[in-house]
């Protein structure tokens, strides 16, 4: 097994973990973390799946990952701001989501 395949398989594993956490967990911060794990898995698959071109690794997936990380950071920050606002509004210690899903 070549090393890049390890990254691909580990990335797919992270995707599974992320999706599971996002669907099953109730605590909003945990669900946010699930989405982040999912994004990390996607980025790992992107890097692991990149082929080599002459003169080094393919530059396009690297640029894509950089873009993806910035998007993930922005989204996480917005999510945490929302969670904090929900927390303020309910005046509770723990931020569980109610209702289905």
């Amino acid at each position, binding site marked *: 097994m070549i090393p890049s395949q390890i990254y691909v398989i580990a990335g797919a594993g992270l995707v599974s973990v992320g999706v599971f956490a996002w669907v099953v967990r109730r605590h909003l911060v945990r669900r946010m973390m699930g989405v982040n794990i999912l994004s990390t898995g996607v980025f790992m*698959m992107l890097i692991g799946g990149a082929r080599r071109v002459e003169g080094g690794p393919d530059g396009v997936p690297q640029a894509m990952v950089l873009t993806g990380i910035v998007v993930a950071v922005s*989204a996480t920050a917005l999510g945490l701001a929302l969670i904090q606002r929900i927390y303020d509004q309910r005046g509770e210690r723990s931020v569980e989501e109610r209702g289905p899903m």
Partner: protein
Amino acid sequence: MRGLPLISASIWVPLLGALFVSLWPRRYAARCGIGASIASAAAALLLVVAVALSGPRRERLGGWGAPAGIELWIDGFSALMIAMTAVVGGVVSVYALAYFRAKDSSGDPQRQEVEGRREAYFWRIWLLVWAAINGVFASADLFNLYVTLEVVGLGAVSLVALAGGRALPAAMRYLFVTLSGSLLYLLGVVLIYSEVGTLALFQAGESLIAGTLAQAALVVMVVGLALKTALFPLHFWLPPAHADAPAAVSALLSALVIKVTFYILVRLWVVVFPASVSQPVGEALMLLGLIAVIWGSWRALRQQRLKMLVAYSTVAQVGYLFLVFGLGPRADGSAGWQAGAYFAISHACAKGAMFLAAGAIARAVGHDQIEEMRGVGARLALPFFAFGLGGISLMGLPPSGGYVSKWLFITSAAATGDVIVVIAVALGGLLAAAYVFRVLALAFERAPREGAPSLRPIPATLGWSALVLGAVAVALGLAAGAPLALLEVGLPFGQSLAEGVTP
């Protein structure tokens, strides 16, 4: 006109407008915002006219061209979607002018502060979302679609959260859905890139071969985008998010934002994936679409709140959109796809009108409990009339855009022998009639002698702008020729797309 970067202009004008609005003090937000909206609509319509007159357009950003650079591509399908965004977006902007203004009459400074903040942020975020929606429709690059999709998603979540209160948990759930949906789409892009080595939509479509990789990519992309379009059974997030947002935002979400992911799915189907891979998935999507039509309409019928009713109606209407993935590839020529595209634009106008009307009614009555609207119809004739016009299109009564698209659906389903589709489309129309008339009948009952709800005065703009959208939804049935002709430009669903038209 040939050489001008009109596609970029249709994206840059609203983007620049958003930045411009943000630089001014809050009290100028509405004035700057409506100016920027008019400019954005004008830039979009200029592009659409250019496409209608002189054919599809392409821009190679930076002069590189695919696969090194990003290309923008506009044919009849994307032009029609951009026109839909301009019309609905323009009318909703006018509505928002009155909607966010009218509230601060209480004199409470803290309340005015909150309202002023809400208005200021609505304009800048909405203009960014507008730019990104046009960006999706113009993009011919798989990764660029992901980035524009994220701007639309994060902007839409922020707009829902503007309502505060119970909209915040709805916005949170919407955020999770929109993020995971785009990430699953990105996962598909990653797989496709690792095989074909290009992100350009049309080149990827030429090189992708049927196989395990294509199947895996299709499945994750379909799950992600169906989640974001709220296809049954992944619709759980839509009703609270669309119903609890400010009315202007609800209209934008239901009319435009869900069409964005639908558009990407159609492009993937027609351009990227080999038919042998997408065929079985398309059949499954059609089946889910049929269930969504019945289930969504049934749930809409049983709602207590007017905006919830309209939101569940969106769940049903999304079902119709997904019929095209079964019908489109099978029907003769491009009839099935055209039905879907026409349904998308007529639903945008009809649902926009209904949400705007529901917002105006709720503002006047003070809540949106349907049971307590007994007898208010005569005093709120304008918004209820707009609600009814939108309803006509949802039921598919002639003459309306809904009628034309359902007729296209039924003829292409009859040609392929899908009797169950014909039945479901008819049944969905009947259920739509039931939930629309339930509201109208109650509203136009004779008012109870005592305890008739007292109404607050609302700006006339609210009713009139809803009425304009409702009128457009009906007019789409009277003048279907022009939009359908536009849809033929560049043959977006034809065979020639993959081979020749991309110059």
